[in-house]
């Protein structure tokens, strides 16, 4: 594929992510931080986020599976997930976390379980799309091109 084509794909893809609300401005901030000294910064941070989120989601699943649900613990996990998702700009994941926390406060197990499902879905969706984006980026770079900056969309 030609670099131009790749770059166009890349832009379309990232554009969609922002427009659909999966990502917000914070993600652009990350991209702005990437530079020659840290050329893989965004991928690095997002990978950290994936690792951490999966761990949290597992913990949440386990916690909600308990006989006696410890809402405080769940709230702590969700709070953390909220923090990290907001740090990378994972808007929809973060918003779901906010709703999740409200249900925790209400100690509503059913609603919490639903939220957990939703968070997992949002997370997986985001993960898939970001992975596609990164793949495109790799291809662009491999083909000798430069990653298009997304800030032009903001």
């Amino acid at each position, binding site marked *: 594929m030609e670099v131009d084509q790749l770059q166009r794909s890349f832009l379309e893809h990232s554009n969609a992510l922002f427009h659909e609300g999966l990502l917000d401005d914070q993600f652009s901030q990350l991209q702005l931080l*990437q530079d020659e000294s840290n050329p893989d910064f965004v991928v690095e941070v997002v990978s*950290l986020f994936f690792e951490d989120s999966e761990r949290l989601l597992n913990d949440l699943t386990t916690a909600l599976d308990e006989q006696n649900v410890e809402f405080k613990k769940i709230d702590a996990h969700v709070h953390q997930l909220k*923090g*990290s998702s907001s740090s990378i700009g994972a808007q929809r994941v973060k918003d779901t976390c906010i709703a999740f926390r409200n249900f925790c406060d209400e100690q509503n197990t059913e609603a919490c379980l639903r939220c957990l499902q939703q968070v997992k879905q949002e997370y997986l969706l985001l993960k898939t799309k970001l992975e596609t984006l990164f793949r495109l980026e790799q291809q662009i770079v491999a083909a000798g091109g430069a990653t298009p900056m997304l800030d032009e969309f903001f």
Partner: protein
Amino acid sequence: MNPPPMSFTTSPSVSWKSVDAVSDQFPAGLRVLVVDDDPTCLRILEKMLRNCLYEVTKCSRAEVALKLLRDNKDGFDVVISDVHMPDMDGFKLLEHIGLEMDLPVIMMSADDSKSVVMKGVTHGACDYLIKPVRMEALKNIWQHVVRKTKHEWKEKDLEHSGSVEDGERNQRPNEDVDYSSSANEGNWKSSKRRKDEDDEAEERDDTSTMKKPRVVWSSELHQQFVTAVNQLGIDKAVPKKILELMNVPGLTRENVASHLQKYRLYLRRLSGQHQNGLGNSFMGPTDASFGSISPLNGLDLQALAASGQISPHSLATIQVAPLNRPTTTKSPISVPSLDQRNIFSFENPKIRFLEGQQQHNNSSNNNQVNLLHGIPTNMDSKQLTTLHQSPQPYSNMNMHVHTQGIPSAVLARNGIENVRGPTSVVDFSRGQPGNSSFSLVGNSGISSLASKGTIQEGFNMETKGSRGFVPNYDVFSELNQNRSDDWGLHNVGSTLNPNVQGGLDVGPSVLVQPGFSSFKQKSALGNNTNIGQQLNSSLNDNSLRIKAERLPNMGFHQNGLFNDHFGQEDLMSALLKQQQEGLGSVETEFGFDGYNLDNLPV
């Protein structure tokens, strides 16, 4: 895409110079410590701060952060910490840093609820950032460093020009100078009130031209401070008198005044958390009645001196001896596990001090007290080694202490094989998860912690501790008094890091002495009995919230320790977990064979 390099120029005002080594390139090179358990955020913050040309150190655990800060006093300019962390509450970390290092701390969280932000304010945070943190927010954190420095410098300047800023600021700046200069002379006791014109002038010049080199409130220094405050009584503790008692060369009334403010805030917060144990660990004994431990230690030493033990063996003997002694004063101190623990921990330091004093008969005893505070004397060095987390601090301390004249016996008692060897005790405290207070507990609390563990499994340690202590208390009731203070200090952060030691080269001994001597003969043996009884009552109250007032000096110390310990239950359990094996071994090695709880009133 990167933000343009900072182009701030250092203000020509001399006050900035002493802020830190890189003040000339301020704010570039600003040394930031970031603490956050979220790896994603941590990485992002690190990158953002690097882009601001700051020097970043990142840390995902609060206790590691505290260790870093303690090991590198003056190694950081500002700390940014997350509020919600699994190993330690961000606010607790904030308090520790504020009291021990007096660094500006910025809190951050995804939580933007007013209550949490307010908490940040009341705990003394310089700023509160809401996550996700943006570059713009980080770019300007240098203002907090400057603000703090300038404020401190200004206080000092105003003080010397005689202006009275608030009630605490004395109208006699000269006195501050006097104290400082007299301390410098080494003969703190006698020269304390002597007005040395030269020194005074020198001091004034220094203070007015100095940018107010930030006073680093090390754990020892803080302990001395708490000792002094407790001796005076929290209500009567005015900076001038505290400074006098502390007798730290170079320390000014302003330093003490600002530290006192923070301490008061801290205490206020503690009283609100009383139910949960005495909030932060390092402020165990909040009651003025705690008195200072130093005198007690001194007395103990003297008493021990009579025994004539100097060698490590002697120490062991000494340690055991008192334990086996029938409770003279303390008699039946039924010390609930907690109390025992306190006693144990308390005792240890005391014993050490006594021995140390015996050897040296000098102010260094005080040092020892402070330094060794928290070092379970009952623990063998081996045992301590087991518990040893990081001998580093202690070894330094010991070295320092040794310099001061701490008898090797004393050191040995504390688990220090030799004066120069690192003591596991130190490590223990250091290795404690959580804050310094924890470590303090560790040291002093190692025994206590150990006892705790023991108690849980069986009372072995506890009883032993108490027993051993009882006799000591009898002899050293006064020391007990002082001890509590020391505990407080220890709690603050007993980890004596080499840096601190070095910095306070003259300090420790000097500092300790004043307190020590003043506290000497504070209490009669009778106190011990009272203490014992009080301990009983406190012990019965397993909340471990033993109020200082209720407890005799000794009790206070112990309780204070306990409270601290308990206050940090999570830390303790974590510690205990860590120490499980260690504790076990310690128990057996303690050799409190003769120890029995009979003496302790239950």
